[in-house]
């Protein structure tokens, strides 16, 4: 379980990183925290010629707080968020999610951008940031573009990152003070990848009611207007049948699998609406 031979570069600026990434006849892998890439290298499931470590690039570790959003560089670690070393615009929601990711050793090194780009359907940020309505800032040779998380994650382990492009930062919108949030995941043990995730954001001031069902076989299911799940604007009754139908429509055929996802979302809803 030792990786095949590869070259390693740790560029100091974004331009150099993009240049390395554009190198011809070289398969490159980007290393942000290495918590997914490390095992893949060790198991020789990926055998790149070049590993580009992006953690020394200032843009990648930047933190910018705007009036209505927060920008976190891709290499901000889960522990940075958990420990409050970066500002929070989510009333503590992101700190709670970060604190529940894997184990502390993983959180010390694992990064928000790396986790999104690995796009494991069971990973926390994939679902949580979709529910929070976050966006990713992508940088390529042609400049930058911004995508909603649910447009970025397009399938299991699949993103819309183009060849030569890097995830540079994540933009998280500021929640209203009165926003209600719940994030529930079902794991068999602490630190394990989730088997079901339910996330709910109800932000009446911003006229938002969003639900996410995560840890499916593919990208998270984002229900942008989740009011119908609760029987209309102000009702608090969770409609499990509707959630079940949504999962069935999304291709989840196993009824027990649907059951745990529906229950997980229902429990998140109960927390958010209590």
């Amino acid at each position, binding site marked *: 379980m030792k990786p095949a*031979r590869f070259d390693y570069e740790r560029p100091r600026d974004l331009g150099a990183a993009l240049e390395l990434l554009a190198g011809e006849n070289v398969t490159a892998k980007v290393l942000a925290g290495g918590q997914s890439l490390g095992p893949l290298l060790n198991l020789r499931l990926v055998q790149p010629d070049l590993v580009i470590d992006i953690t020394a690039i200032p843009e990648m570790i930047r933190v910018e707080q705007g009036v209505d959003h927060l920008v976190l560089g891709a290499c901000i670690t889960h522990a940075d968020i958990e420990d409050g070393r970066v500002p929070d615009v989510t009333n503590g929601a992101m700190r709670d999610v970060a604190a529940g990711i894997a184990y502390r050793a993983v959180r010390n090194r694992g990064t928000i951008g790396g986790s999104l780009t690995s796009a494991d359907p069971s990973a926390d940020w994939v679902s949580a940031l979709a529910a929070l309505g976050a966006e990713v800032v992508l940088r390529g040779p042609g400049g930058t573009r911004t995508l909603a998380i649910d447009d970025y994650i397009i399938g299991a382990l699949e993103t819309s990152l183009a060849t030569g492009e890097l995830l540079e930062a994540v933009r998280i919108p500021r929640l209203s003070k009165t926003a209600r949030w719940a994030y529930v995941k*079902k794991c068999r*043990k*602490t630190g394990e990848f989730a088997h079901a995730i339910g996330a709910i954001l109800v932000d009446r001031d911003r006229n938002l009611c969003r639900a996410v069902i995560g840890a499916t076989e593919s990208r998270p299911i984002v229900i942008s207007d989740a009011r119908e799940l609760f029987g209309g604007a102000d009702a608090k009754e969770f409609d499990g049948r509707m959630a079940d139908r949504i999962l069935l429509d999304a291709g989840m055929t196993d009824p027990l699998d649907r059951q*745990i996802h529906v229950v997980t979302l229902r429990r998140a809803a109960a927390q958010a609406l209590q």
Partner: protein
Amino acid sequence: MADQGIGARLTRKEDDRLMRGRGQYVGDIRLAGMQDVAFLRSPIAHGRIRSIAVPPQFKDAVFTAADLKGVKPIRAVSSLPGFKASDQPVLATNKVRHVGELVAMCVAPTRAEAEDIAASITLDMEELPAVHDMLAARSPDSPLVHEHWGDNVFLETFANVDIAKAFDAPIKATRELRTSRQAMSPMEGRAVVAAWDSRLEQLTVYTAAQMPHINRNGLSECLSLDQAAVRVISPDVGGGFGYKGILLPEEICLSWLTIQRGHPVRWIEDRREHLTASANCREHHYVITAYADRDGRLRGIDCEAHVDSGSYSSYPFSACLEAAQVVSILPGPYDFEAYRCRTWAVATNKCPILPYRGVARTGVCFAIETVLDAIAREVGMEPYEVRLKNLVRPEQMPFDNITKKHFDSGDYPEALRRAIAAFDLPVIRERQQRGEPDGRLIGVGLAIYCEQGSHGTAVYAGWGVPMIPGHEQATARMTPDGGLELRVGVHSHGQSLETTLAQVAHEILGVEVARIRVVLGDTALTPYSTGTWGSRCAVMAGGAVASACREIAERAKLIGAKLLQADAASVSFRDGSVVSASGDVGIADIARTWYLRPQDLPGDVNRGGLEATVGYKPPVDSGTFSYAAHATLVAVDPEIGDVEILDYVIVEDGGKLINPMVVDGQIYGGYAQGIGTALYEEMPFDSAGQPLASTFADYLLPGPTEVPAPRLDHMEVLAPYTEFGQKGIGEGGAIAPPAAITNAVNDALKYLGAELLISPITPGRVLEAIAAAKSKQAERAGVAA
């Protein structure tokens, strides 16, 4: 000075080193010129090797079976009638029989480079149909793991004691049960460094091993080397659990290689190798019927059991290790009159079955305790009441049970009563009726077992396996400065022997524990021993150390009497001193005089000196029977299938506890592993025999948050045949949790009519059982309508 002898709660001597990260494991060893080995392993479960093509530039770095001329295969035979032997080639010859079987050895300056070489080899194989399920392997049209056998059965065993007497019992409960294949997963995997010393003409093998002398036997046999030319050193070992009580083909390969090449070589098992290629234990299948009267009195047990033994018979415990034991230990701590049991040790295309803490007992306890709960539900009694009706009673002790096991001592009903008394059962029953506010279902479950440990010559001679324990030996030697060195052939990898054996010696010689050094894990420094296995060290090594120290006390008396100018017959040894009517002399002074001031001793002093190796065996060596009752309260979430352990109580009897803290630690560790068996650990396979969990992301082990602190209670009914009344308890913690937790889950689910009959109890299995119960009820309702 606080008491340091038997029964003292001393902190461990070894912890200063181990807790500071200063332990020395095989992986820490650096020898000049050492190179790393990686193995090319079989990618398929069953196949014939057509060719192994090595790129020309690596010709000198790759070795296959064709190169290992004269190296003998590993052969672990049992003399039990009908046993079919297997030859396990150290590198595959012609055929491979499991995924991960060693095919070629690659050597390079680093492991990564050795893996590069392994990846460059082209292995051409003809894939054969594989069988990875033990029941399928019994069917007549199954592929054969060893063609010349004609079937896939290593060994069939059978016992029948008046089973027909039970057939008219009014109550009968039959259950089909399964336990999944597990991997033992010690923190440190296997690890080997082999080095040839041309001056000594000796092979030194550093290996993470529980039984260094047995490894030496096996190495010498397979490599045709004199035993004197082989030294096995097992430094600090990061957990054994049975997994390291085995002769490894890797050890033989590396030994051969260092002899060929002259430089040291190393192989460190990685976790993927551990999970997919090497570790295999616990997989049983039972069809068990209990017969009872309406008052819960057990009339008989009838059982057919299969044990998946994998592809080869491992050295030294053999492939019948578990299956043969099932017959004799299935009756558990119960007294009943009719018994029949048939077992099969089945060969499959999986890596060989190896011992794991609790060997066979964990599965057996799961089988009988589950079916006893089924009886309790049938007769409408509390499970503990049914057990109290059937447990061997203290006044029957010592008791020869239905399979002629000699239960040495104990009060089984008392252990059970204490475990149940730790819960408020009426309140729990009321809560169950009321239902929990969060919608979960709670249930209480219990399990009781007795564990034969430290079993000796007669038991193993009966099995006729390559390793039969005789007199356990220990060397005690006073040093010139009044310290004491103890040399034992057992090893310590979590057992705390550096502390507890020192306590035993202190009890007899009075030397301070801080001045006692325990030397283990080196065949050149320690007397021969079968090593550490079978919950035997406290009894056997403890007894041996006590015997050797008594001999030292006798010798000290002879020298001390001279110094006191007293008649040897008139002196006694007390509290570390030789005492006469007129004075006393301490053992440190006696040692100093013997070694450093011999001129102070008369010429006719006894010449035996202050170093003695003595063998020990209890007068009755059929084993100690420690026992424990486990009881637990769990909550089952019927919507998502999660099981939470709310409370867990263990009442155990280890006889005299040499160090109660160490015993607690052993129980905690075993209990954690038992929770793994009950709720998490499972190696799944696909239809081609491919193991599907190759990392800990897929093979789940319980972590700290999954192992709630149990409440422990000790009984100390002294063992009648051992040195201080101690009993072997090392494995016990791992035996009962699957049974107790399963019974608790089934107690919780009884209102839904659902029952779990397989370990581990996963959320998916809980939901499936509930769904199956619902559809059955719906079906019944349909029929009724």
